[in-house]
């Protein structure tokens, strides 16, 4: 097995700010160059907001972390100009299969409808995703400072002052907003002494990445009680470079130091694969946890990603929800810095709703996969037995409900429907993709608010300062997906949630919805 060699290493450079007598001042300082911090930095850069991205390492580590990147994340990265290398390298999949023992119970298709630019999921090692994000950040000239570790924060009237340790000693930076994207063990969270509230699960899971050429199809396979791992569960995923991710459930009493020894892991995986023709790339053992900060916003310091909330991995809700945090926060920071008030509070509210939903789903899945006592196991097994016989039984089976973006039910930014709609995404809902003209809606939208409008001939005037995306009669799938009657329109937020929708457009109603939704 390889040791944790760095996948990529970056040079520390002394910055001119380090020689200043008074701290340099920036609108935004981001702590942590993982998927969330990098996404946010790129988003802000494209909005013309100057930011500094600090990371306490000088490398992208190998090892087994996020692998499943969801359609929504890919749409965000596509907007930011870095989805193409992810798609090229990543393994696309839509199909999941669930087995019990030797038998397949059922299969599901995560993207049963056509007309989406992005697949339901790609599998890609997190280090590749980070590398492509760093490439994009560097191409955009983002101020990325490696081996810069924040050791102190002091809030003041106009933001916060950070103390930063470097190989050349400490220096200070001033920021209007500091965004902590510093991961599940967040040093910033610890520095503030903030409680990370939630629960830890008893069962342990062994995560092994193995290298092999195998004839398995590119699908997510989940086993309850597999013949090769009696009484426990197992998840198999393909990654690029002939790497396969295997999650094996261990009992609560399992001795982690013993279980992680290659001499113990190898026979388990040999039993699973039926051969020994593989190399172990990575082994780790986790006890899953679901936790969150009570509040994500602490004056000028804002938490995002795993630093703010942690979920168990069934459902791919960790990195995906973190990237959505960044997507939610970027445009709000930009608008706030341009003088629009109240938006940061809506970040806290909307992403809290998302965190609660993710924790709920992840907790339910973990409870199903790892029943806590015999009666729970009985119900789990009853559901599996019924799954062989009935549709409703299959719907009870939970091997992880895969990440979908959250509907913001009670967003202060949404304008409720005035009249009923036959279908289509309601205010607060993330929009579906659909073909538009020769491309896709997800490409037609850019970084700002937009009005998706099936304009009547009489509707010649646009709306002041608001880009219009015209829907034409030939965009049948889009018209159906959005239930767009002639003259109807959707006001779409920069993060592509519906702010409001109108059967008929007038300057006044759109302007009011736009103001409510937070346009600067």
């Amino acid at each position, binding site marked *: 097995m390889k040791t944790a060699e760095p996948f990529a290493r970056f040079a520390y450079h002394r910055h001119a700010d380090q020689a200043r007598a008074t701290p340099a001042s920036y609108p935004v300082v981001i702590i942590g160059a993982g998927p969330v911090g990098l996404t946010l930095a790129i988003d802000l850069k494209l909005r013309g907001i100057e930011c500094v991205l600090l990371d306490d390492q000088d490398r992208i580590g190998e090892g087994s972390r996020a692998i499943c990147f969801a359609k929504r994340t890919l749409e965000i990265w596509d907007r930011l100009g870095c989805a193409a290398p992810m798609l090229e390298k990543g393994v696309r999949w839509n199909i999941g299969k669930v087995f019990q023992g030797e038998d397949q119970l059922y299969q599901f298709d995560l993207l049963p409808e056509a007309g989406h630019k992005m697949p339901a999921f790609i599998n890609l090692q997190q280090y590749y995703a980070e590398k492509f994000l760093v490439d994009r950040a560097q191409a955009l000239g983002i101020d990325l400072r490696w081996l810069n570790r924040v050791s102190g924060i002091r809030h003041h009237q106009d933001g916060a002052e950070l103390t930063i340790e470097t190989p050349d000693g400490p220096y200070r930076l001033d920021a209007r907003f500091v965004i902590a994207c510093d991961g599940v063990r967040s040093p910033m969270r610890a520095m503030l002494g903030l409680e990370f509230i939630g629960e830890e699960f008893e069962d342990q899971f062994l995560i092994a990445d193995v290298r092999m050429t195998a004839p398995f199809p590119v699908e997510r396979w989940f086993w309850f009680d597999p013949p090769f791992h009696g009484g426990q569960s197992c998840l198999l995923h393909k990654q690029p470079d002939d790497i396969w991710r295997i999650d094996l459930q261990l009992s609560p009493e399992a001795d982690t130091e013993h279980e992680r020894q290659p001499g113990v892991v190898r026979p388990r995986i040999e039993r699973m694969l039926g051969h020994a023709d593989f190399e172990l790339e990575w082994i780790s053992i986790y006890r899953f946890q679901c936790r969150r900060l009570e509040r994500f916003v602490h004056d000028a310091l804002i938490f995002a990603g795993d630093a703010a909330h942690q979920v168990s991995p069934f459902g791919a809700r960790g990195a995906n929800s973190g990237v959505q945090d960044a997507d939610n926060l970027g445009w709000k920071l930009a608008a706030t810095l341009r003088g629009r008030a109240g938006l940061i509070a809506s970040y806290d509210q909307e992403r809290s709703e998302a965190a609660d939903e993710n924790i709920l789903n992840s907790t339910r899945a973990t409870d199903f996969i790892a029943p806590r006592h015999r*009666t729970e196991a*009985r*119900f789990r*097994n*009853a*559901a599996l*037995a*019924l799954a062989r016989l009935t549709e*409703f*039984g299959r719907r*009870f089976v939970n091997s992880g409900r895969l990440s979908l973006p959250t509907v913001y039910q009670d967003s202060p930014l949404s304008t409720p429907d005035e009249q009923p709609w036959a279908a289509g995404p309601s205010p607060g809902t993330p929009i579906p993709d659909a073909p538009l003209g020769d491309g896709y809606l997800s490409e037609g939208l850019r970084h700002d608010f937009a009005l998706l409008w099936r304009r009547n001939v009489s509707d010649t005037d646009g709306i002041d300062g608001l880009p219009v995306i015209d829907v034409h009669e030939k965009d049948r799938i889009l018209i159906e997906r959005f239930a767009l009657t002639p003259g109807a329109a959707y006001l779409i937020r920069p993060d592509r949630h519906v702010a409001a929708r109108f059967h008929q457009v007038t300057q006044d109603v759109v302007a009011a919805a736009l103001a409510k939704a937070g346009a600067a």
Partner: protein
Amino acid sequence: MTALDTSARFVDPDAAYRAIIEAQRGLTESQGADLNAALVLILANQLGDIALLREALALARATLERAK
């Protein structure tokens, strides 16, 4: 809002009770518990209403309190 109907709904409650008991005949305690778990899921799905299900669960919990 629908509420859990606690009036007797079977024309012949004795027959319904008997059917439930008969299903357990010949089973070990463990098999009986497995059967009950499956039955709960089947009946819960037939109920198809989370509020009603919660009321039913609360009523079942209340019987444990009484039994103390």
